[in-house]
């Protein structure tokens, strides 16, 4: 971290780059859309529950996409649902992030060949920041995915495009 070090040595003064401060604020309270799709959603709920405690990373489920910063696509995306997810995503305010959780939303998963009704990867509809592999991923894997997203947000810059 290293961002707030100086607060503790210099009393009430915080010295930080505006960029770092904004990124820190953003990555520390990633409110998610309360939205689950399939069996991955069960793991996502387990991650939110007390044992894994998603809340300690500032992830709070919100009932409206208009309150939210991230959406976790947790499960099989059917073509019928894909149009709805696109609408949810469009309702979220910027900056917004997407975690694609599990094989189904990464690539269609077990439905990749014969699933006439399944979208073969949510990235065909909305841009994905972090892909979490697994079928379904364990809560630890989802936490890892969130930490990866936090790293990504920490590196973003207001002036130059992040690599």
């Amino acid at each position: 971290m290293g961002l707030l070090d100086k607060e503790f040595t210099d009393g009430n003064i915080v010295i930080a780059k505006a960029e770092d401060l904004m990124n820190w604020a953003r990555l520390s309270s990633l409110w998610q859309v309360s939205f689950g799709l399939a069996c991955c959603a069960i793991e996502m709920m387990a991650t939110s529950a007390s044992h894994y405690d998603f809340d300690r990373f500032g992830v709070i489920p919100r009932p409206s996409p208009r309150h939210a910063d991230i959406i976790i696509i947790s499960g099989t995306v059917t073509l019928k649902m894909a149009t709805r997810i696109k609408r949810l995503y469009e309702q979220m305010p910027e900056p917004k992030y997407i975690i694609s959780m599990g094989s189904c939303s990464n690539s269609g998963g077990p439905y990749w060949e014969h699933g006439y009704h399944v979208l073969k990867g949510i990235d065909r509809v909305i841009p994905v920041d972090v892909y979490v592999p697994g079928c379904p991923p364990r809560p630890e894997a989802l936490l890892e995915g969130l930490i990866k997203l936090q790293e990504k947000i920490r590196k973003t810059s207001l002036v130059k495009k992040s690599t």
Partner: protein
Amino acid sequence: MKNTEEILQALKENFPDFSFELKSDLPVEGFIICNPLVIDKISHFLHDNPELNFDSLINLSGVDEIKANQLSVYYHLESTELKHKLVLKVVTDRNSPEVASVTDIWKGANWHEREAYDMFGIKFLNHPDLRRILMPYDWEAGHPLRKDYENPEFYQGMKVPF
């Protein structure tokens, strides 16, 4: 409690004009094949007759028998009172599949028939609300569980194949 042969006898006595065929040479339970356009009348009889009393439709499913160029519907019935079961089958032409609806008799048939319509394109006559149930309402590529179904390249701008 009656077995399939006894039920077939009761059906033949009550509907002398309709054709019934018992199929029992398969490794599954025997079933009765009947006419798709009168399945509602037959179902009414099976439901209302106190000695048969089929009060429960366990399942209703479509099957594509493409080699015989036919679509069929299977009805699995049970009498929770008398503890007997029956399987009915109706066969329709693959090019114009029409089956009488049994939603008047068993309310649960409503969604089963919608599913059979969605997946196989079987038209259920006198169904109160014959819309697709699982696929999107604007799905134009046909009925996906038909053996000769081809998935479309795109749906609403989304690429469908892997």
